[in-house]
């Protein structure tokens, strides 16, 4: 287990660097897919099998596809960013230095880093059933809330992204939602 984790950890880090430092957005997207897959694997190793699946499904399957889709949509224009990095290196260095300084002073200040004590015997792992029980028991209200959230995001994304051709008429907004929902509903968690 340790070995797997170490390998996954190193790989994830490398891929994340790839996301951050790639010149092309498409390359970044591909590196992101790799990160997400590796993270899924990592979840699986950490006894969170259901999450691993969901991670791959949602992230790799939906989010990244969406991004790639947008990259394609924007096409050549997206490449016309004047330079890759927004900040001069020294600013990044200064920030890094500040962070390091803060961390060092923190370390010297005598504060401890301490995790909470372990409560009970480790759970067997996040199987779909266990997680489902939690979600529909204790976290039912949260689950409902996330539904509202997704609904709101959907509604918003549609009205923001839809091309505006016709003048505003009553009832037009929801129809657009319905159209888009048919196309995208499969990609969402239900």
């Amino acid at each position, binding site marked *: 287990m340790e070995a797997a984790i170490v390998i996954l950890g190193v790989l994830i880090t490398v891929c994340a660097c790839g996301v951050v430092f790639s010149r092309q957005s498409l390359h970044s997207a591909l590196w992101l897919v790799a990160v997400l897959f590796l993270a899924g694997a990592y979840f699986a190793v950490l006894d969170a099998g259901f999450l691993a699946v969901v991670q791959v499904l949602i992230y790799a399957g939906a989010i990244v596809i969406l991004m790639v889709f947008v990259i394609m949509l924007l096409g050549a224009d997206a490449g016309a960013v004047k330079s890759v990095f927004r900040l001069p290196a020294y600013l990044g260095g200064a*920030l890094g230095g500040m962070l390091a300084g*803060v961390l060092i*002073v*923190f370390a010297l200040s005598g504060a401890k880093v301490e995790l909470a004590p372990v409560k009970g015997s480790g759970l067997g792992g996040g199987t779909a059933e266990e997680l489902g029980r939690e979600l529909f028991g204790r976290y039912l209200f949260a689950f409902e809330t996330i539904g509202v959230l997704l609904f709101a995001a959907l509604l918003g994304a549609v009205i923001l992204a839809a091309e505006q051709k016709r003048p505003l008429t009553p009832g037009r907004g929801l129809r657009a939602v319905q159209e888009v929902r048919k196309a995208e509903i499969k990609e969402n968690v239900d």
Partner: protein
Amino acid sequence: MNYGELNQWFLREQQWALLLILAAPLAGALFSYCTISLGPRRQMLAGWIAVCAAFVSFAVSVCFWLFLDWSAEGGAANSGVFLFPWIAAGGLHLDAALKLDSLSLTMILTVTGVGTLIHLYAIGYMAHDHSKPRFFSYFNLFLFFMLLLVLADNLGLMFVGWEGVGLCSYLLIGFWHQQMPNARAGQKAFVVNRIGDAGFLLGMFLLAAEVGSLDFDAVQDQIAYLNPWAIEAACMLLLLGAVGKSAQIPLFVWLPDAMAGPTPVSALIHAATMVTAGVYMIVRLSPLYNAAPAVQFIILALGSLTALLAASIALVQYDIKKVLAYSTVSQLGYMFMALGAGAYSYAMFHLVTHAFFKGLLFMAAGAVITGCRHEQDMRRFGGLWSPMWGTFIAYLAGTYAIAGLPLGSGAYSKEAILWAVYTAPDTAAGLTLFNLVSWGGLFWGIGLAVAFLTACYMTRSLVLTFFGSYRGEGEASESSATMLVAMAVLIPPAMFFGHSRGIPLLESLRPWARQDLLLSQSELMRDDLYRALEHIALFAAGAGVVLMLLAYSIGRGFMMRLGNCIPERINPLCCKWWVDELYEYLIVRPLAFTARVLFFAVDRKLIDRSIDLSAEIAGASGQMLGLLHTGRIGHYLLIMLAGLFFGAAFWLVF
């Protein structure tokens, strides 16, 4: 009703009578102003109302003189009325209360008597003016304030009259206010007087603080218990007031300018009455001044210097009113000399005689001025005796009296003062001058010189105006009847009042007078020193008259050359000893400069600007902060992260 009953009735009602003295001119002022709504012809009514009001006051004053026993031994009569408490705060009470004793009776008789005549005169003088209601209203108002000043029973109420006459003087000097110089002169008079008034106020405060009251009686009773220093200080401060009102050095500069007013104003206010208020005040407080020998010495010195200075300037003036004005200053100097010498009754004596003859002189001068179509320059007069012989007689009588020629009233009062000065005790300075001359001798010498100069300049003005040939344009004509009547009535007292050799009414002053001056007439005549001094003074006056007559008859050419040999520009006499300029450059300009500096530099630049600047700084720093909000997401992220880090650092440090 026989005389006795009348007397009794008057004594019973004397409080009302006293009030009537004041009320008549006040009512006169109101009513004469009301005539403004009448047509221009009927506005002459204002003058008659005013005359009647003045005459009522005079008549009542005369009744007081007749019906009260003023010569009773062991306590002269007096009369008083308490009206209402005026200002009462914290143990300080100023009451509206009047008091009539022999001193104030003398004064009110003079004021109302001369006042009535000059009112009458003014009817003629102002006949063609368009604002008669305003003039007579102010004139009567002046009378009211002057009487209030005289009758006040405490310093506070006296100050009301004191400032009130100043106000009327201001209004009347600037009566023809279309001409800016007139208005300016009025303002100058008021402001200079205010400087004196400031001293008056402080003196009052000192007395009130030390004595606890401003009643004359209370002050008098407390003198023995007062700190000598306090007495001297109070006398000094009050003296400042007197100096302002009575136009003495250093505050005499307003009086010559005050001649800008109509001539009746000059006659009444700036010769006969108001300017003597300072003298009256000091006489009123004579017990206090007696206790302050150092101040007395200062008064003596100031008076004599003023007399000399003013007389010297009068010598070269060509404006007939200016000559008389400087003469007034000079004569007031005499009165101050008398005050300084402790001869209060002589000061009052000269005050009264001066009121008569100076009033007469001004009236005559006014008649000349109207007769010559408002010409005032003596170089444009000449030979006026024939077209206006009535006026000539009046002027001649006045000149005779003021010059101190034998048997004229001026001679008596002036000689008495000179004698008092000569015999003044040296306690004041404690020293004789170089051990040769006593101070009294010195001031007597100055007084003598002034007597000589007085004769000179008065003769000069008489000669230039009435003798020789007429140098003006057009015809000179005699004035109206009312003016002549007024002058005619005043000639006898002006000429002969001096024969009384003092005023019998001043019994109330007796306790504070110098004992060596309390000689009867017969005793005086037997006093060798007095007679010697009298003769010297008469000689000096006569010499002055003769010299001037000679100079302007045979020595005319010599006089011209004398006049030409020193250019007017640098002639100290023509330039009035540069006193006005001195004040201008020493006080007015620096003060104006300071004011400008305060406004432009301190107020605008320093205070205002610094406030605006702090607002600017706030605004500018706001704009700087605006620069922080560049609108770029990257910068925002950086700022937020930096905030996070600095927060951590802050937490670690503190």
